[in-house]
């Protein structure tokens, strides 16, 4: 369809622009927001590739959860940009080497015959009622059920590890026990004192 091409270029341009803003913007909060925009454009591109389930999950997981926590942290930090920039030159050589290596690897993989346009022709478009989610579920829960469960176990272990690493008992933390609070009766807190009424005194004490 001819409408797809302009839509693709629209999202692709935004994606590339947002991704370059992530590394060039000086304010870390704005950089994080640019990353959100990059994720969003990438999700739109995935939907354009008929991978609507993956696109929406990218939004849900990365934009909706991960980046919110990221922003949360970045906003709380008081980052001194001048201090950060002072050591910038020191890391340039090693950073350059890593970048060059990554570029070389990408060129080797993407330039190889397996990944060029002849090796990867466009898949046939699916009919409108084709359920991407159902197809993915069928694969994940039958053919790839063991890798899938392994990934789940790895995630669970990492959750437990993260909590174990950061959980520490602090002496000055005050805890509330809601069950105890609910169980409180009047007699625990208030003492009623019975005393006889007294006549009002005359002037002077």
């Amino acid at each position, binding site marked *: 369809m001819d409408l797809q091409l302009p839509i693709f270029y629209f999202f692709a341009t935004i994606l590339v622009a947002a991704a370059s803003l992530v590394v060039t913007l000086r304010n870390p*909060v*704005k950089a994080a*927001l640019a990353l*959100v925009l990059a994720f969003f454009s990438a999700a739109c591109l995935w939907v354009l590739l008929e991978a*609507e*389930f993956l696109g*929406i*999950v990218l*939004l*849900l997981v990365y*934009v*909706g*959860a991960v980046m*919110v*926590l990221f*922003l*949360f942290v970045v*906003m709380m930090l008081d980052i001194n940009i001048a201090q950060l920039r002072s050591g910038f030159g020191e890391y340039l050589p090693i950073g350059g080497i890593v970048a060059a290596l990554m570029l070389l690897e990408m060129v080797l993989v993407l330039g190889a015959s397996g990944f060029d346009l002849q090796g990867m022709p466009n898949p046939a478009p699916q009919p409108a*009622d084709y*359920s*991407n*989610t159902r197809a993915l579920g069928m694969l994940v829960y039958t053919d790839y059920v063991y890798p899938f469960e392994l990934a789940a176990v790895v995630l669970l272990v990492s959750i437990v590890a993260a909590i174990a690493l950061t959980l520490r008992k602090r002496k000055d933390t005050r805890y*509330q026990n*809601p069950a105890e609070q609910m169980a409180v009766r009047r007699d625990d807190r208030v003492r009623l004192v019975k005393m006889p009424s007294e006549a009002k005194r005359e002037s002077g004490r």
Partner: protein
Amino acid sequence: MFDWACTLPLAGWACDLYAEQRLLRIGLGIIVLVVFCILMVLIMVYAERRLVGFMQLRKGPNRVGPFGLLQAIADTIKLLIKEVIVPTNASPILFLLAPILVLAPALAAWAVVPFGDQLVLADVDASLLYILALASMGVYGVIIAGWASNSKYAFLGAMRSAAQIVAYEIAMGFALVGVLMAAGSLNLREIVLAQSGGIHQWYIWPLLPLFFVYFIAGVAETNRAPFDVAEGESEIVAGFHVEYSGISFALFFFAEYVNMVMIAALSTLMFLGGWQSPFGGEVTPAIGVILFFGKMSFFLFCFMWFRATFPRYRYDQIMRLGWKVFIPVTLVWIGLMGGVMFFTPYGYVFH
């Protein structure tokens, strides 16, 4: 889709001229949905103030127009002609972008909501996921508003709101997992169709705990009383939108009410059988829409009822309720459902 829009007096000629033009019909559908949202918000603002007034033995607005009916319009005009103030040292672009970022996902989510069997703008396969994803986008506007305002109160409100939305989204997502296990589909239209056959087929019965978790989490997600710590007038003035005035404040207000209507619509679709009649059997689209609105109104009434009667939750109580009560309840019920469906012959109870 949206054929009934052609019966509207002004839109009829446009439909006749361009009946074949798909883009135009989508555009028309979008206009109808936005007008619907504006009307709902106007009605709700008036209804809420009157209802809360009656519940608290006050009169509520009764001066503008008969019974105060024009109060919402008067408020809108007042907000429109007020000045938009950008605070000193605020980040001007982000400050003005924030209300739009709150409103846009709230409106975009309506694209996949079915008002009847055919009355849906985009019958997307994964419409439930789409709504969940857009609902999680709304938090950005709140965070950005709090940060860009350059104000302590706004920032505190934004932090509270972000923590609250992240916490309740998980419980909400798990409650939806139960619904899609029962229906076997992510498509809202199919979820409603799976509940056809009368009131006993509605998912509110087999999924009762999930229904309560979903609706209460929905109240928390929209930052409504009793979960409105993000605004907490008595503690942090007005929370994240303390620096906003005029139309930029009105957009936040508008988005909050659109989100309320959305939660009510989703509760209706997923637990009360959407447009279906409680007595079973087919209904005409017109009656279906009326039924849908009737069920939705009940939930909207509940929103106002809560606001009029409950005191605000303490912040730590909100976090406890979200993480330690709702998430375990949903997980247990999902596990129970899965076990019954897979290991016993009583799985039909759930679908």
